[in-house]
């Protein structure tokens, strides 16, 4: 019988490490896009023709992203080999496809469609690592699942805005829809399972992160508008935008946890026994 996450505290910690590395990778990717550094290393898989490129200016952001990607892929491979579940293999496949997509972006000089797919798959991969770490293999809660899908759609729309292939309007409209769906999922969970920390915590995290996202999104939009004529990416715009990306990922992760944990009318004791 293959080991499960619940069997080993070290396996749980390892899975949590994978989640943390993936989140760091998402943040690093946010910095790459905000600094317009995606092509600072114009070759792949080498870096300026070598293993370690000259660590100058924007090259540092892109190289850090590639190093984190390699670490995350190796850690995910280790987790997949250890667990041997469908979800783990899917996560491994996702991170390998992401690596290949990174190469496509360099090879074909950053086509916008590939950049959007890269961003979307990053979010999906993050969700998979969260699902692995929180021992969820099925989405049980309808409201939380719908909220997770809405938040994922917002990632895609946000990436389309970042890469200049869509206006902010669909993303702004999507924010309203996603917020309503998150409130539905979070509040309905809190009203019925306030005494269950396994559900209360992700519900509270989802609600607070999503509300933060609304304000971060407004700030990111205003920062972008204020610095539209700047000759280079300005620090304020970069940091707020990356914070918006990071909070979006965390909100999506919270929705995945909530969706996997919250089965309707399942008593707490029964859920504990099943885990």
């Amino acid at each position, binding site marked *: 019988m293959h080991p499960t996450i619940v069997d080993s505290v070290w396996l749980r910690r390892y899975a949590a490490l994978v989640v943390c590395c993936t989140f760091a990778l998402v943040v690093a990717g946010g910095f790459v896009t905000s600094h317009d550094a995606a092509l600072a290393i*114009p070759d*792949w898989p080498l870096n300026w023709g070598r293993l370690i490129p000259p660590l100058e200016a924007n090259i540092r952001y892109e190289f850090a992203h590639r190093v984190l990607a390699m670490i995350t892929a190796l850690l995910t491979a280790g987790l997949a080999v250890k667990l041997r579940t469908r979800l783990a293999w899917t996560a491994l496949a996702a991170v390998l496809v992401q690596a290949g997509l990174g190469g496509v972006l360099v090879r074909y000089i950053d086509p916008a469609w590939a950049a959007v797919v890269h961003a979307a798959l990053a979010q999906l991969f993050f969700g998979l690592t969260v699902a692995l770490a929180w021992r969820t293999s099925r989405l049980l809660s309808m409201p939380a699942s719908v909220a997770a899908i809405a938040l994922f759609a917002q990632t895609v729309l946000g990436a389309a805005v970042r890469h200049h292939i869509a206006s902010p309007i669909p993303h702004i409209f999507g924010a309203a829809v996603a917020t309503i769906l998150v409130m539905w999922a979070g509040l309905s969970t809190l009203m019925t399972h306030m005494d269950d920390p396994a559900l209360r915590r992700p519900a509270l995290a989802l609600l607070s992160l999503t509300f933060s996202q609304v304000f971060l999104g407004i700030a990111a939009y205003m920062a972008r508008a204020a610095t539209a004529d700047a000759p*280079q*990416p300005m620090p304020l715009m970069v940091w707020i935008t990356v914070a918006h990306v990071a909070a979006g990922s965390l909100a999506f992760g919270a929705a995945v946890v909530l969706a996997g944990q919250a089965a309707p009318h399942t008593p707490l004791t029964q859920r504990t026994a099943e885990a």
Partner: protein
Amino acid sequence: MRKIWIGAVLSCSLTFIGCGGGEKPAETAKSEGAAPAGGGGTATPDEANGGTVTGKVAFTGDKPKMATLDMSAQPKCEAAHKGEAVKSQEVVVNSNGTLKNAFVWIKSGLPDKQWAIPSNAVSLDQHGCMYEPHVIGIVAGQNIEVKNSDPTNHNIHPMPQVNADWNESQSPGEPPKMKTFPRQEVMIPVKCNVHPWMRSYIGVVSSPFFAVTGDDGTFTIKGLPPGTYTIEVWHEKYGTQDQQVTVGAKESKTVDFSIKG
């Protein structure tokens, strides 16, 4: 085990797709709008008998304040300017109230001819982590000599819409790269992904009738066949303006532009 093999094949496939440095840019002077110099059937400007259009690009309105570039990400770039603040070159208003770096070209009206491609290359240098010149013009198919005079690494990333794009690194001491664009395109932005404040523009014209305004804001276009032309000025911030001009043999006409800030 089978899943491991599937995953390995998938990642290898994507690796092969991703490997490489991008499409090969046009490095030979094969133009769609001009022909190599000295080839049969090509035309060259007749400066002795042709018409001349001169003029200036004046700037009216409040002189915009240009942002100071933040080169702190690369100390070698800062050192190159010896502590002096470097301003964005987006709008450079000369002391005589004219605009520098305006690209002026004959947009339409020329006879349907194959114009000879000059054999000399136009230089685009990376110096002090800035492109020099900020705006250049070439005949379609003419070579651009891209140089790196800095002690730091650059990558050169033109972003054409009509021509093939490319993105290449250039280390200090590396020999100049000879590049070209075979199709007319006004204008092609160029950036460095390593140093995001670096920006330049390349005007690719199928004829040799173009000019870039300098420190006095003037332009001169010589050797025009007699005729009526649309002459256009392009500026990176203020867009384009067109005027009509009719010029005869050995005639000189003045066309001035006024751009409001």
